[in-house]
């Protein structure tokens, strides 16, 4: 029998699953995890504490038979405080209480060079029901250095506001996603994703005075991520830039950076910063007090059929800065506890390359989250 080239042995070995491109192989998790979290959120505007959210959650990740992963989570939000109000006026801030239950489940099948997952989620409030289904797949090149990701999802929402402004309104959204991840050596990984979303249905906010938005919205997002590992400190930088545009006329930029630094004694410290800026929707109006309608109305407001109008703060031109710090401590081989704090401030003046929507009241939020994870 003739010998084949001995070099073929090395090539054949490198083709074995998980022997090459170590940093990136989409391998199933080795251990299961169960995490209990408690999130505390409070936002405020000058002179007014607004929404408070208390949100316990439980999530589980379980490897099954070496090639499957099951993930599931259950979350309960209790929301209380002033209802979302017009952005500058103090009046009209009535009290609200609401609660939300959200659950999602994802099943992933891992293959030697990729994975396929199916997910479903459901979120229920007394006036809002949202259900989503998604499928996502990834496939890696033979050397595992490049991987491609594709995803598709549909979301169906039902809106039944307690004030009866609309009844049984619906929104249907289809999302398509494609991405590529490239290993750029032992220290760097880059990722580029494009997401396209088409939505039809009710986009208005039923609790806002004079909020009439288009019944369709197309959104496009480009996301670039870059992770870099520093040999000297053993830390990892995770930087990203996201560009967003939609048919409401909003253009948004998000720049974020977090730095993960392992310290001695099982500690890891992760400071983070995120800078966000968006332009206003084309039908956004800066509100003024109207002599006829009272609380905020657009200047010289006249109602006409087909009118599109919003005064929602989230549709305005503004910028925002989020600063965060997360501390994680490993307790033995099986337990991880982490605490995370985030401070968010939103101001017209932080809008990139301009002053943003005039008269927009600053908005602040802070989030605490405590999590306990058990590995098994």
């Amino acid at each position, binding site marked *: *029998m*003739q*010998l*084949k*080239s*001995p*070099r*073929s*042995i*090395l*090539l*054949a*070995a*490198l*083709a*074995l*699953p*998980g*022997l*090459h491109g*170590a*940093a990136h*192989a989409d*391998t199933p998790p*080795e*251990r299961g995890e169960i995490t209990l979290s408690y999130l505390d959120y409070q936002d405020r505007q000058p002179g007014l504490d607004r929404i408070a959210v208390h949100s316990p959650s439980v999530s589980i990740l379980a490897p099954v038979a*070496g*090639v499957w992963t099951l993930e599931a989570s259950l979350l309960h939000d209790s929301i209380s405080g002033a209802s979302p109000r017009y952005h500058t006026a103090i009046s009209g801030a009535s009290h609200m209480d609401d609660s939300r239950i959200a659950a999602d489940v994802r099943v992933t099948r891992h*293959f*030697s060079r990729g994975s396929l997952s199916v997910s479903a989620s459901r979120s229920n409030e007394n006036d809002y029901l949202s259900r989503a289904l998604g499928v996502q797949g990834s496939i890696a090149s033979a050397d595992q250095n490049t991987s491609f990701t594709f995803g598709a999802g549909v979301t169906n929402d039902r809106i039944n506001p307690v004030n009866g402004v609309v009844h049984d309104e619906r929104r249907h959204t289809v999302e398509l996603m494609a991405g590529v991840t490239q290993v750029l050596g*032992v220290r760097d990984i880059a990722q580029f994703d494009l997401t396209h979303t088409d939505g039809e249905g009710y986009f208005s906010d039923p609790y806002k005075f004079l909020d009439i938005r288009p019944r369709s919205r197309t959104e496009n997002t480009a996301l670039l991520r870059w992770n870099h*590992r520093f*040999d*000297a*400190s*053993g830390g*990892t930088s995770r930087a990203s830039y996201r560009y967003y545009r939609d048919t409401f006329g909003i253009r948004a930029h998000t720049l974020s950076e977090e730095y993960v630094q*392992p*310290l*001695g*004694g*099982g500690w890891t410290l992760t400071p983070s910063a995120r800078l966000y800026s968006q332009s206003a929707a084309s039908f956004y109006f800066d509100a003024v007090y109207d002599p006829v309608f009272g609380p905020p109305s657009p200047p010289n407001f006249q109602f006409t059929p087909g009118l599109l109008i919003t005064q929602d703060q989230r549709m305005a031109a503004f910028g925002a800065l989020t600063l965060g710090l997360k501390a994680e401590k*490993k307790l*033995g*081989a099986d337990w991880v506890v982490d605490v995370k704090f985030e401070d968010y401030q939103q101001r017209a003046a932080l809008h990139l390359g301009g002053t943003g929507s005039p008269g927009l009241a600053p908005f602040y939020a802070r989030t605490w989250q405590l999590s306990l994870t058990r590995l098994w």
Partner: protein
Amino acid sequence: MVRALPVFGIGFGAMASRCEIRLAASDETEAHRLAAFAIDEVKRIEAKYSRYRPDTVVSRINAAAGVDWTECDDETLALFAYADALFAASGGRFDITSGVLRRAWNFSQPRVPGAAQLAPLLALIGWGEVQREGQRIRLPRAGMEIDFGGFGKEYAADRAGTILAGLGVTHAYVELGGDIRVLGPQPDGAPWSIGIQHPRAGEGTIAAIEVASGALTTSGDYERYFDAGGRRYCHILDPRSGNSVDCWQSVSVLAPVATAAGSYATIAMLLEDEAIVFLDTAGVAYLAVDRHGQLHSKNVGSVSY
């Protein structure tokens, strides 16, 4: 100035061998936490491919020999594809069906099996005749066996290394019973100095090889053997004759991954007089000790994969 991380050694037993993971970590707890992922992977492979446990895919394939097909998963099929490459590159000498020869060779007694004893076993050897179809495999004759003992330990070392690399570990090596996969140099950048066991002097070493990355494995005639009639009979058996090879005391190979390094070393043992040409053609660094104790080496000490 950032202080270099300390190095911790975590020993464990797996695959009937003494094993160790050495890695740089912030502290001992962290080192154990990281190593646990790699050790779990080694134990997973050991449990999945053991031929001693009745429920493994290997045992099911062997139990169905001459009778039925057995469904295999992707990882097992990938290992078969690798076995194909070894079979082809070794001219059929590296054959994962040759384990049946253990029925004639019992190294606890110095007895050389005769031709009459070997002939029926040789008829059960032949990876080239094994039937495969999609996800299924079938051994054509009752009594045939496969096992991954020829490269399972090296494969596990590589997989464990992959997992550590995925956790961000850069200064570490995984050693499974003398087969070593190196992830990166010591924290100060210096290569690890790895001793090569002396094939005739017990715990002594015959050389030390500097390795900063890649893998170093050794195949030798001193693991299971007996001496009789002035020659050594070792556990490395030529599947064509059923006889023990007798040319090299040991062959150590440096290659980018342990799976390949181990296969080069074993095939070199099996190829006997053709070993040096084979290793040179493969382009790997090696250190071989011939039956007289003479050293033959190439690029050892200066290579870094």
